[in-house]
């Protein structure tokens, strides 16, 4: 029998029981600060999207899909001098629209889908990191939609989303200057603060500061950078940046293999 939702009023808010549990004070086990978790990456798995990629690193699982290029909304823009290599003038360049979503069950507390400010900020970070790599001048008056869905947050979620988005764009056949590889870092507090590469969720929660770096490995250009917390002086952040760039370079061969396999799979599937 359906309950009478008008008269029976349940509690307005709900909390997970862990909030009231005693603090578990076991610090995460000591580990090599430069270790990267093994990564599983696969491109070309969604049939409805132009390009897609799934990335798993430790407990972090991200699924990314790319659609487009399709006609951009928005008014007429003026013309200007054309860029080099037959690209459209600056006002007619294509647009990249990024969307970052967390599944409600991805973190410790349930979060309803319109996640508010944090998801918008991460979507903007995705866009700023992917724009240097994509040749938007070759898609005038068009827009590309990239949507990243975080299925489970096991640490360095933004970095995994960046890498998955770049793989999805490459899988969709969008013209790019280079792939974008993302890497997360966090500063473990303690008597001697050390920067840890590719932190797990537990390490991220106890961290004093966090940093996500996006690198274009062949061009050796930093495409994106987002960090905050009590990281200390600039030397400490510079050391973290170097560690992150090195981690991105180490991750690159895995992604190359993933794209080659996806291309082979596609050519085997369509006999032409």
């Amino acid at each position: 029998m359906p309950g009478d939702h008008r008269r029976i009023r349940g509690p307005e808010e709900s909390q997970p029981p862990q909030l009231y549990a005693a603090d578990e004070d076991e610090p995460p086990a000591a580990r090599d600060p430069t270790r990267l978790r093994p990564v599983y990456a696969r491109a070309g798995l969604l049939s409805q999207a132009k390009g897609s990629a799934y990335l798993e690193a430790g407990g972090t699982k991200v699924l990314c899909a790319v659609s487009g290029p399709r006609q951009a909304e928005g008014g007429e823009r003026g013309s200007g001098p054309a860029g080099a290599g037959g690209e459209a003038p600056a006002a007619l360049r294509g647009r990249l629209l990024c969307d970052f979503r967390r599944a409600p069950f991805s973190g410790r507390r349930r979060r309803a889908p319109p996640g508010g400010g944090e998801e918008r900020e991460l979507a903007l970070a995705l866009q700023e990191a992917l724009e240097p790599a994509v040749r938007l001048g070759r898609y005038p008056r068009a827009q590309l939609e990239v949507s990243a869905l975080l299925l489970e947050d096991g640490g360095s979620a933004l970095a995994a989303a960046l890498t998955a988005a770049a793989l999805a764009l490459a899988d969709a056949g969008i013209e790019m200057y280079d792939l974008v590889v993302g890497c997360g870092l966090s500063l473990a507090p303690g008597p001697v603060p050390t920067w840890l590469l590719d932190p797990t969720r537990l390490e991220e929660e106890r961290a004093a500061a966090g940093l996500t770096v996006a690198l274009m490995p062949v061009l050796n250009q930093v495409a994106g950078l987002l960090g905050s917390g009590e990281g200390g002086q600039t030397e400490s952040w510079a050391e973290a940046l170097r560690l992150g760039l090195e981690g991105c370079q180490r991750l690159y061969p895995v992604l190359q293999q993933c794209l080659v396999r996806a291309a082979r799979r596609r050519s085997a599937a369509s006999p032409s």
Partner: protein
Amino acid sequence: MASVALSEAEKVYIVHGVQEDLRVDGRSCEDYRSVEVETDVVSNTSGSARVKLGHTDILVGVKAEMGTPKLEKPSEGYLEFFVDCSANATPEFEGRGGDDLGTEIANTLYRIFNNKSSVDLKSLCISPREHCWVLYVDVLLLECGGNLFDAISIAVKAALFNTRIPRVRVLEDEEGSKDIELSDDPYDCIRLSVENVPCIVTLCKIGYRHVVDATLQEEACSLASLLVSVTSKGVVTCMRKVGKGSLDPESIFEMMETSKRVGKVLHTSLQSILHKEESLGPKRQKVGFLG
């Protein structure tokens, strides 16, 4: 952000000038435009400040209200930021146009204050789990002339310095019911310590060099900028790359060093100005909006 249409010749002129360490208005690459700061401009707030940096005009109001602490941090108060890009600043902000930029700036402000040392949140607690002070920091963008983030962070620091939170006591009587008592003396208030409040320094990459405090024209020539939030002691609390271009790792290291240098100078001059203004007392001549 407000955009300005520049011809190719103007862009080349600006870029070549910057390579020689000479900008269009005669500054060097690490010079700020002259900044005007005035606090206590709005009477209905707990603290307010107005900052004018070249053509950029920012007004910040801080209101302290009592609320319930967050569940994860029961003995701390918190800050809430809201940024409104008014349509006066540029016609592009009419209607909902300024919302995206407003959310971006608000998220950056949340990020730079998201650590234990910037503001002492424990002093904002009244009684754990029940009452705490919530500081609503509202930023109004009146005019956009380039370098928004720096001007906004200076204004927020000045407004927090000016904030006066009334002293309250929680009285508990025999039955256990609590009552909140506000002090009778209107001048009996808590002041916040802004020693560790960071300021944002935006460095725009133009050609092979980077500039501090870019005007709208210089921002149009720059493809990528680095935003660093640095405190007076040189501690960096936030770093972010902004823009659609990419940055060389070597230039990022140089930009971080520059931001530390420039940040220290900015903080010392801001602190001295704020203390000087405070020492003039309530009888000082207020300039307000017509000066």
